């Protein structure tokens, strides 16, 4: 009797274990897949940026390694791996080594809440194409991305070099200023969706993309996003004509490459958020959702490259004035208007 009861229990436990195991496997596969795809996109972005910029400036860009220089990122990667890794004598060693990782990790973490497709059925199990759908997804994004500053600031300080320090300080001031407008620009969308979950935000855009309802919000978001990831024309922290290379002046070899990858990963992250909040996420006719998501993402990334090769760099005081005296009031105005419209419509 006792034995049979035990056996039944064991049956239940193994049933539960099996479900848990399947869940675990699915989550791990999703994490690995997203991680791999983002890394792959980072590598292809580096090639694409060089190619697109070159063609915009009537050049050819990398041509020697592989067809149309397609293998150039791999050659660059191998070169960086074999370069001598220099740590300055008077640097703060621990932070100097830690800083590139601190820049890289937050950029990757944000992808945990971004939905990249509709739920699909694989072998009878329903799989949501988002790593995790938390009900504070919006806040999670800003929590994680606000930690991304530390990598750059620590790199600037730990190098014990005045140009690095200036770059680090510039970047922290810039990121604090623009993070504010970055968050406020998305509030309008959250007000309309009435949810902080990114899955709900995407589902609410089935008929109409938010970019049509929130054009000012999109404009503010994209401008602040460029400043947030330190891209031209807001790349003051690494302005080579003033600061050598800014916060990564002292870095070489793979640590330098990690800063480089972090910048591109950040760019992909903010583009993915733009797609999710304003461009309808994975929604779209005919093509499968994941393809739509990647298409829109590529569009946003192309826009980043386009802007970089078009605009000259701003001066530092212009950057601060633009953020605090133009974008911030505009984003508050946008929230006010959105609130008014919601109240009037009932």
């Amino acid at each position, binding site marked *: 009797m006792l034995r049979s009861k035990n056996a039944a229990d064991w049956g239940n436990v193994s049933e539960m274990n099996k479900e848990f195991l399947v869940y675990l496997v699915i989550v791990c596969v999703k994490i690995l897949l997203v991680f791999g795809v983002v890394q792959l996109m980072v590598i292809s972005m580096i090639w694409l940026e060089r190619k697109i910029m070159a063609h915009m400036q009537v050049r050819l860009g990398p041509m020697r390694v592989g067809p149309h220089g397609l293998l150039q990122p791999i050659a660059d990667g191998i070169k960086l791996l074999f370069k001598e890794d220099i740590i300055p004598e*008077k640097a703060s060693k621990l*932070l100097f080594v830690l800083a590139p990782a601190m820049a890289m990790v937050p950029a990757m973490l944000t992808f945990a809440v971004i939905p990249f497709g509709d739920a699909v059925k694989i072998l009878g199990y329903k799989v949501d194409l988002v790593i995790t759908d*938390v009900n*504070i997804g919006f806040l999670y994004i*800003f929590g994680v991305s606000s*930690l991304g500053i530390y990598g750059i*600031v620590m790199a600037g300080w730990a190098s014990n070099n005045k140009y690095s320090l200036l770059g680090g300080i510039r970047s922290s001031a810039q990121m604090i200023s623009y993070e504010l407008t970055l968050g406020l620009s998305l509030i309008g969308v959250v007000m309309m969706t009435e949810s902080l979950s990114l899955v709900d935000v995407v589902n609410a855009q089935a008929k109409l993309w938010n970019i049509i309802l929130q054009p000012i919000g999109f404009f503010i978001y994209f401008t602040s996003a460029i400043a947030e990831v330190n891209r031209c024309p807001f790349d003051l922290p690494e302005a080579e004509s003033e600061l050598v290379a800014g916060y990564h002046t002292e870095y070489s070899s793979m640590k330098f490459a990690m800063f480089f990858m972090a910048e591109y990963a950040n760019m992909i992250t903010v583009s993915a958020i733009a797609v999710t909040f304003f461009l309808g996420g994975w929604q779209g006719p005919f093509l499968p959702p994941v393809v739509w998501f990647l298409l829109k993402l590529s569009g946003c990334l192309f826009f980043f490259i386009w802007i970089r090769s078009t605009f000259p760099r701003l001066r530092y005081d212009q950057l601060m004035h633009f953020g605090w005296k133009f974008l911030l009031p505009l984003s508050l105005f946008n929230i006010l208007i959105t609130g008014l419209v919601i109240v009037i419509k009932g």
Partner: protein
Amino acid sequence: MLAYLFYIVAAITVTTAVYLIFEKNPVFGALYLIQTMVSLAVLYILLEAQFVAAVQIIVYAGAIMVLFLFVIMLLNLDIGEETKNALPYQRIPAILMGIALFTIICIVIRSKLLQGKQDQYTTAFVQGVGNTKLIGNLLFTEYLLPFEITSILLFVAAIGAIMLAKRKL
């Protein structure tokens, strides 16, 4: 499992807080404080207060500590410089005040003054409505007055700081 997680995170929180106090280098001190803030956020999540956890990270770890680091880096550029004891008479009053503050905190915690909402706000109810929505609703209805007073207080502090720092506007 959750209990073990609590002990691990609590140990990290206390350890980093102690390191913060005994660290000579202010930059490392600030980094320990950031770790304390982040572990506190994990503790909030263990208490099912996701909204508070997110705000803790955004406001404290993401904004205030960046400004701290910013100021420390601007003022204290030399690594490993021994800081002189600028306030020699501070030690005994500081210990006394510390004990007083600790006693007050203990009394307040024991006094059930800070019990918050209970009866209808069970865990299931909070999870059903959602943490953020519930806090928003309470903040803008029942606790509107304290909320507004706090915001005015912060506003006054900000204006005060600007007035002190910038005499000519």
